[in-house]
């Protein structure tokens, strides 16, 4: 790829729970075309999918940005939702504030943020209550 870096931006619709996952499915396609290994593709798309779902469930949508760089793939998730009050607590497996109607769809297991951390090489959460959340993840390639 030389020194070029590729950039993609996806809007995540906060109203449309059923289309959540579109950014990750497209990303998967993009990464496949570039020729990354299945393991890298899987890690990036799982992490992004969980982030997308969180933006829909908890933050009324947002934006996903994908940067393909020489040595890493970077994902930035930005939303203007309610923010996360206690990040350490939110990172715990099983912790969830998702309402029952979301649980009945199979989400709200409190595994999203832990999965994102598990599948990436770095993850940083910046969040302000009442302003929103920005999550930056990288996967080394």
């Amino acid at each position, binding site marked *: 790829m030389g020194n070029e870096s590729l950039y993609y931006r996806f809007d995540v619709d906060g109203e449309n729970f059923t289309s959540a996952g579109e950014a990750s499915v497209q990303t998967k396609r993009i990464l496949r075309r570039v020729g990354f290994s299945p393991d890298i593709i899987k890690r990036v798309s799982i992490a992004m999918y969980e982030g997308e779902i969180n933006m829909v469930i908890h933050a009324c949508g947002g934006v996903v940005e994908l940067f393909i760089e020489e040595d890493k793939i970077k994902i930035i998730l930005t939303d203007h939702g309610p923010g996360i009050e206690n990040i350490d607590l939110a990172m715990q497996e099983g912790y969830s504030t998702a309402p029952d109607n979301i649980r009945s769809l*199979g*989400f709200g297991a409190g595994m*999203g943020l832990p999965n994102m951390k598990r599948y990436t090489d770095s993850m940083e959460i910046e969040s302000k209550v009442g302003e929103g959340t920005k999550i930056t993840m990288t996967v080394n390639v």
Partner: protein
Amino acid sequence: MTVRELVDRTGLTVLVLPDGDHEVSGVYAGDLLSWVMGRAKESQAFVTIMTNINVLAVTALLDLSCVIICEDAEVPPELIRSAEEKGINLLRSDAPEYETCVRLSSVL
């Protein structure tokens, strides 16, 4: 074994089979999608009672070989249509998840 062969040997109902030659590497059963997302492995058959559209996203992202909806749960027509579009094999079982897994285990 391919998904098509699995269907032949277990008598599962085919809802759509656009990718019948997909090899089945094993089985993962679960209904919490984030859990499945974190644990299921490529080409496993995904046994579940969930029938919302997000099941397909998980299946596509993990390259699972098929979704098997248990307990004869009602499957929304949109799910079937979307599975066809996305090239995802969608099957149905009249048995609960446990019995379905036992049946799968006896042929795999």
